[in-house]
């Protein structure tokens, strides 16, 4: 077993970079859409054979056991090379929760199946009446003999139509005094009569989001993770690392690179107004990266990140949107055209980038919610 954490940052980065550059299929780099598992299965097998499916998991569970500093490097290299994250809900969300709160039986059964992608997971959190106000969720799970019986609806369930299992937050005590109490964390199989999946067509015409309906669906009671009615605290405990990851500069940096080659090909830099707006965007990205580095250093020193890390997400997602809007401007009369636009020897899908940027200010806690958090937790404003 390699002790990656004992390596220098530079050596580790080199090792990760070399593996991605040598092994990751060229045609899958910077995929503009979320792939179904079949599309990336070949790559997943390579990653699995290498033992690199779960960089954050402890080695005893089949992970790489990376500390925060090394993990950041791993993700930076992944994004730099445009390596698709694959169907990583199991690795990112369920696995860590089972490792932290699950029983030995749950660990022995589920973790290897997550690594091998024998089970493919989707996340059942949001509901039509529980978006930003997630604790308002209503999907019920009631004990019936050895099973939970589930009734209700989940929405924005990414890739539910290509998943074998769902991990979900469900209401198990509707009479709890606070709505955050009475929520449990449950695992359930998708392939059963009581589960109905419908895809949602997005603005860009993709169908990666789904609605999932539960009509007396069943899951064995041993699929409860952690204590009954303690699901909310458990789910929140996982978000700490997610919060810096979601604010990483890579999306905006990649988009800026695309904008530059596209704008150059189109002659947009002849226009001084465009030059200034490009410079603004490029400097927004550079200075954001400096702030990101400050938070990353905090992690590297072993410190826990505070609520102020939310500012990374606000800045970078809004900057990403402005960059994709500049692409549309540079496209001129082609600004409404679907599909790749050819400029010289590069082709840029302007609309795909534009659409990709839109939900970034909505998901992972909308930017308005992030502003609420910063205003109360960081600035100490009342109310």
């Amino acid at each position, binding site marked *: 077993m390699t002790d990656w954490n004992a390596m220098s940052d530079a050596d580790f980065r080199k090792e990760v970079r070399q593996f991605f550059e040598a092994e990751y299929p060229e045609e899958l780099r910077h995929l503009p859409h979320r792939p179904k598992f079949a599309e990336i299965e070949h790559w997943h097998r390579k990653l699995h054979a290498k033992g690199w499916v779960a960089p954050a998991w402890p080695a005893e569970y089949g992970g790489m056991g990376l500390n925060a500093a090394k993990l950041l490097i791993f993700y930076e290299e992944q994004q730099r090379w445009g390596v698709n994250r694959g169907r990583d809900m199991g690795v990112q969300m369920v696995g860590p929760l089972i490792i932290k709160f699950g029983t030995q039986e749950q660990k022995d059964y589920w973790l290897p199946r997550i690594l091998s992608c024998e089970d493919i997971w989707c996340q059942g959190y949001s509901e039509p009446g529980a978006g930003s106000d997630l604790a308002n969720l209503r999907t019920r799970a009631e004990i019936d003999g050895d099973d939970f019986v589930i009734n209700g609806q989940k929405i924005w369930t990414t890739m539910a139509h290509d998943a074998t299992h769902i991990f979900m937050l469900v209401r198990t005590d509707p009479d709890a005094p606070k709505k955050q109490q009475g929520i449990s964390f449950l695992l359930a199989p998708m392939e059963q009569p009581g589960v109905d999946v419908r895809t949602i067509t997005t603005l860009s015409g993709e169908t990666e989001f789904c609605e999932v309906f539960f009509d007396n669906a069943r899951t064995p009671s041993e699929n409860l993770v952690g204590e009954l009615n303690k699901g909310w605290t458990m789910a929140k405990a996982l978000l700490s690392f997610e919060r810096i990851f979601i604010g990483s500069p890579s999306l905006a940096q990649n988009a800026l690179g695309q904008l530059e080659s596209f704008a150059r090909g189109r002659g947009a830099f002849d226009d001084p107004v465009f*030059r*200034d707006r490009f410079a603004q965007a490029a*400097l927004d990205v550079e200075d954001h990266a*400096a702030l990101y580095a400050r938070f990353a250093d905090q992690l590297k020193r072993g410190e826990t990140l505070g609520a102020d890390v939310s500012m990374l997400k606000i*800045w970078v997602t809004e900057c990403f949107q402005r960059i994709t809007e500049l692409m549309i401007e540079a496209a001129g009369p082609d600004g409404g055209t679907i599909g790749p636009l050819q400029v010289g020897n590069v082709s840029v899908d302007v609309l795909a980038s534009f659409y990709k940027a839109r939900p970034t200010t909505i998901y992972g806690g909308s930017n308005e919610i992030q*502003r*609420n958090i910063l205003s*109360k937790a960081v*600035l100490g*404003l009342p109310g």
Partner: protein
Amino acid sequence: MTQTDTVSSEQEDLRLLRESARTLFERAGGSGRARKLRDAGGSFDPNMVRELAEAGVFGVAVPEEQGGLGMGLAAGGVIAEEAGRVIAPEPVVLTIGLSLGLLRRLCPEHPKMAQLIGGEVSLAVAWQERGPGGAPADATCRYADGRLTGNKAWVVGATGSQGFLVVAEQDGGPVLVLAEATADGVVIDKRAQADGSSLGELSFSGTPAAELASGDAVQAALAEAVADATALAAAELVGLSECAFEITLEYIKTREQFDKPIGSFQVIQHRAVDLNVMCEVAQAGVREVLALMDRETDQKVRAQLASRAKARAVTTAKRITRDAVQLHGAVGYTDDFDIGLYLNRALVLSAWLGDDAYHRRIWFDAREAEGAAQ
């Protein structure tokens, strides 16, 4: 010592420097002192200059073998940020960046070096000239036979300084000379600035001056010193922005309307968050630039970095001080409240050495030139 240890001990040194600079400025009277000096006629306080010198402030970026502390521009940035926080009118960036920036590169043995580091004198740097339309133009001020003739514009610290470091033209090449403020033939036309300070328009007619250096080295040293001062002015604006934000945050927490603090209204909260985020991005960006400039030797790259810093700092300071006035409401528009002092200082520091639009242009052109060269 490992590399990480070195980095963290440097960080520790900067932290201590920041603490002592902050204490010094606060003990002297904080931003209230700036108001008093403005009302008294808009000059800086020579006693404060000496106190700052005793704390080692002016020599921070001067190498140890030249009598300084050798802590680099990053340390200069710490001082500039702290000066910005209390809108101190003393020539901190002028001395660290421009005056000492020129002398240490061109004539480190000159006695004025020690006097500047010791806070005994202040020297203004006269390097720009105004063309017929009023905009910056090429140098025409001449130096011949030990005498200086011509005009210089936008001279910061022209009043209150004991002398001028003048970049002039001699036999078709650049020359740096030193003219005493009291020398014959010097006329200072003071242009009042928004913050109560003044810029000097200098005119020399046969003024006796001593040659310090000549040739291409003068142009090169000037470019470096201007880059240093530009990045330090950015740091000063970062400190100014931070404090203007803190004052505003305190105000919206205490000012009540509709029976509640106005900071409990979401529209105010979100604006406050946006200002805070801008502040943090600017602080991270500018500090990174200063650290990079300390490691970088290529003059073009250093100038481009300085432009990045000033562009960010000006955009941030403009937005924060203007929104700060808005969030204060009507009292923000009065001279009684300190927030206006910050707005006025931001106007002056933004215009000095180039504003954000100017520096984005310089930054972009440098990037293009670098791209073309590769």
